[in-house]
């Protein structure tokens, strides 16, 4: 079923919208949630919350592409849940991912910023378009899909150290790019 058809079902308030969404994107969303959260139960709950949120937001939202739309919801919900979980239950790999992103921050944990909400996503997109496609996809697999280094190495048939090295370089390039664009984040 096409994304357009599924969105139409949401607009009709048909419950089959959820079933079709789960059938088409459930596996992707589960993977994203499981990459962020430690327990499978937490990930399943997060994915169910994604469907609920989508049900409430469509309409008025009319996403043309459901994978990025739903994935964003899942990431956001999983991150919130991650924040509330106890330190013992946190997913060490995801915590590591967040720590890696500090490479891109000029001054971590400072509230001041000159960008508008959502504007930074467009700037990061611009930057990613300047990067070689394999490196770009590795970066997105790591920081959008939250895949582990081991998974990425397997997907791209590279060594883990090579993946780490690519990510390190792209983070540094991103930091430079943001600085050159006048962003102090």
């Amino acid at each position, binding site marked *: 079923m096409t994304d357009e058809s599924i969105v139409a079902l949401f607009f009709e308030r048909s419950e089959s919208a959820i079933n079709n969404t789960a059938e088409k994107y459930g596996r992707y969303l589960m993977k994203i949630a499981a990459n962020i959260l430690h327990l499978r139960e937490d990930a399943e709950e997060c994915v169910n919350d994604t469907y609920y949120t989508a049900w409430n937001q469509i309409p008025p939202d009319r996403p043309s592409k459901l994978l990025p739309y739903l994935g964003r919801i899942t990431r*956001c919900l999983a991150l919130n849940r991650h924040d509330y979980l106890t330190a013992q239950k946190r997913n060490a790999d995801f915590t590591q991912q967040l720590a890696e992103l500090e490479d891109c921050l000029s001054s971590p944990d400072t509230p001041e910023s000159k960008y508008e909400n959502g504007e930074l996503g467009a700037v990061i997109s611009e930057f990613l378009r300047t990067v070689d496609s394999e490196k770009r996809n590795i970066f997105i697999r790591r920081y959008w899909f939250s895949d582990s280094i081991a998974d990425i190495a397997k997907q791209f048939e590279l060594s883990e150290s090579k993946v780490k090295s690519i990510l390190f370089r792209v983070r540094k390039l991103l930091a430079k790019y943001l600085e050159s664009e006048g962003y102090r984040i």
Partner: protein
Amino acid sequence: MKRESLYLEIGNIDDDLIEAACAQRKSKKGRINFARFVGAAACFCIICIAAFSAFQKDSIYFNEIEVSSASKVKIPSDENTTVITPNYEELFDYYGITKFPDTLACMQRIEQKSYFIYQNLGGIIYDTNFLQYMSFDGKQTLTVAIAKEEFDIQTEDAKLSKIYGVPLTMGVSDGSAQPTYFAEVCIREVYLHITARGVDESAFVDIIREIIKLQN
């Protein structure tokens, strides 16, 4: 900015980038398998070429022989004989082989206005033509006699050499103070008789290699 906020901002990157990263995961395997296939095929080819080259290794033997460039063919000159005078390009069109270069081993080809092909009512009767090469100081000369129809084979009983898998006869004449090297080879039914003076043996072999490579 908190790292969590940056993580969420990365979430707002363009949809097409996300979809491309998703698609890459699916296509990567196929691409790698294809790359492996190409790699394996390349290895196989290298092994085949190496094996083929081993069998095709050049073997050079210089027969000691008296070199004569005189043709035994008598050109008839009765009223039925006509002479065609092709230019350089037309000559090679006639022979059906690759045109010789203007320079061979530091020797320059001497321009010739026209070449000669004799024919009578029965067709072509004599088509031997000569290309002349000479170094700037005139000390090295190379003559290439080319013929398609009939050719005076000087070395019928001589031991054969082989270059790039092509059999040929090579010889040296020590009759004069300066040795003359020659080679006779037939390529695509065109006979080439190459004679060189003022060059050493290895330089002559290199010239013959260049000519055979050019024609192959």
